[in-house]
């Protein structure tokens, strides 16, 4: 089988499994389940092979066996301890590895989280309230309004999430404004989500109507 014939066959297979998954729209059926399960097996195999070549060999095997960096046995032992979960009596030993992963991961996240998600975001909000656009009065007014809205809107949204103060009177009005902003934000997210999901469908339709259709034509010619 030459390369072209091979690629036609693979394209045909891709089309068949695509249709098998789409068949779920009618109802759950064995064809769908078969495609789904085969894909699960393939995905696990893909991970294992890639893991072996890009992680195990260069980072695990080479470091210990070829470079003699025996301290790398520590993470190996910790890694192996994770498998103690399969032996109920020794299951607790896996906590040592988990504690290392969680402790190190948590520790390294504290400062960047505060810097990126808190300080930088506050910095982004606290820009100059009056924005001067040279030679453009309308632009100046608009940009200034945007700046004021950024500060006021962010405070209003934060007030909405502040439950230690009762949302009554002026606080209540501010919180309500924040709530409307949040709703508009969720609306935008919904709009984008629709866009994303439709894009995925379009991707599959492009494949079926172009590549797959062409492959069928090649099969019969």
């Amino acid at each position, binding site marked *: 089988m030459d390369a072209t014939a*091979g690629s036609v066959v693979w394209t045909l*297979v*891709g089309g068949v*499994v695509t249709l098998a998954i*789409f068949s*779920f729209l009618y109802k759950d059926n*064995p064809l769908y389940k078969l495609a*789904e*399960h*085969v*894909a*699960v*097996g393939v*995905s*696990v*195999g*893909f*991970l*294992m092979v890639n*893991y072996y*070549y890009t*992680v195990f060999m260069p980072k*695990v095997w080479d470091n210990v066996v070829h470079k003699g960096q025996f301290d*790398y046995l520590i993470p*190996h032992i910790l*890694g192996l301890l*994770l498998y103690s979960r*399969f032996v109920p009596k020794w*299951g607790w030993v896996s906590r040592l*590895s*988990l*504690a*290392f992963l*969680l*402790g*190190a*991961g*948590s*520790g*390294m996240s504290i400062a960047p989280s505060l810097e990126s998600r808190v300080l930088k*975001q506050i910095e982004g909000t606290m820009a100059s309230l009056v924005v001067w656009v040279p030679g453009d009065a309308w632009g100046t007014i608009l940009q200034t309004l945007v700046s004021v809205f*950024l500060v006021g809107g*962010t405070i*209003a949204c*934060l007030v909405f999430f502040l439950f230690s103060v009762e949302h009554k009177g002026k606080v209540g009005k501010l919180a309500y404004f924040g709530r*409307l*902003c*949040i709703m*508009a*934000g969720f*609306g*935008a997210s*919904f*709009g984008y989500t*629709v866009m994303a*999901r439709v894009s*995925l*469908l379009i*991707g*599959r339709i492009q494949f079926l109507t172009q590549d797959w259709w062409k492959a069928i034509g090649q099969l019969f010619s």
Partner: protein
Amino acid sequence: MKTQIPLLICLVAGLFMGLQYFIPAALPVYNRVNDYIQVVTAFSLVLGVVNLIHRHIGRMRPSGPQRRRHRDWPFSLAALVGLVVMLFAGFGTQRGPIFQSLFNSILLPVQSTMFALLAFYLASAAFRAFRVRSVDAVVLLVSAVVVMVGRLDDGGALGIPWLSRQILNGPNLVAKRAIILGVGLGMAATALKVVLGLERSYLGSGKE
């Protein structure tokens, strides 16, 4: 011992990784710890794989009082066949063309199509569930519709593309920023609780 040693490891690892940002001399140890995390994470990935294989083999074995197989056992067999074929293709050809083709022609279409199904469910949900029952819902709906129209076609009428950008960079931005601020503070607080041993859910119930 079953609790104290993990808590101690968590504390030491957490404090070191938290403080190394401020101690340049700790860089070599920091690099080593990062390497260690990578290796342990790699083992944890395989843990998931082992779990999955274990589950599918379990479904193929006769069990229960009537010694019956799980009714979906043929599909479990299919999953294991898929796995074995992929392993042969991967190791046999050192990730050659067959390995890549199996990825391109099975994994990629199946996963893509699974998520493409969501477009259908979304359309159905839009028809059945998206109701304007309150002012909040109206704001949400209007915002969604404006973004759906405005982000798509810059030739859209009534200044909708402009309005769409204003929603994205105005109300959406302030709402998401408030959430990011909250999440940032929450993440830092939770991480600190984990390091200090105040958050111990990862230790499980302690009965095993």
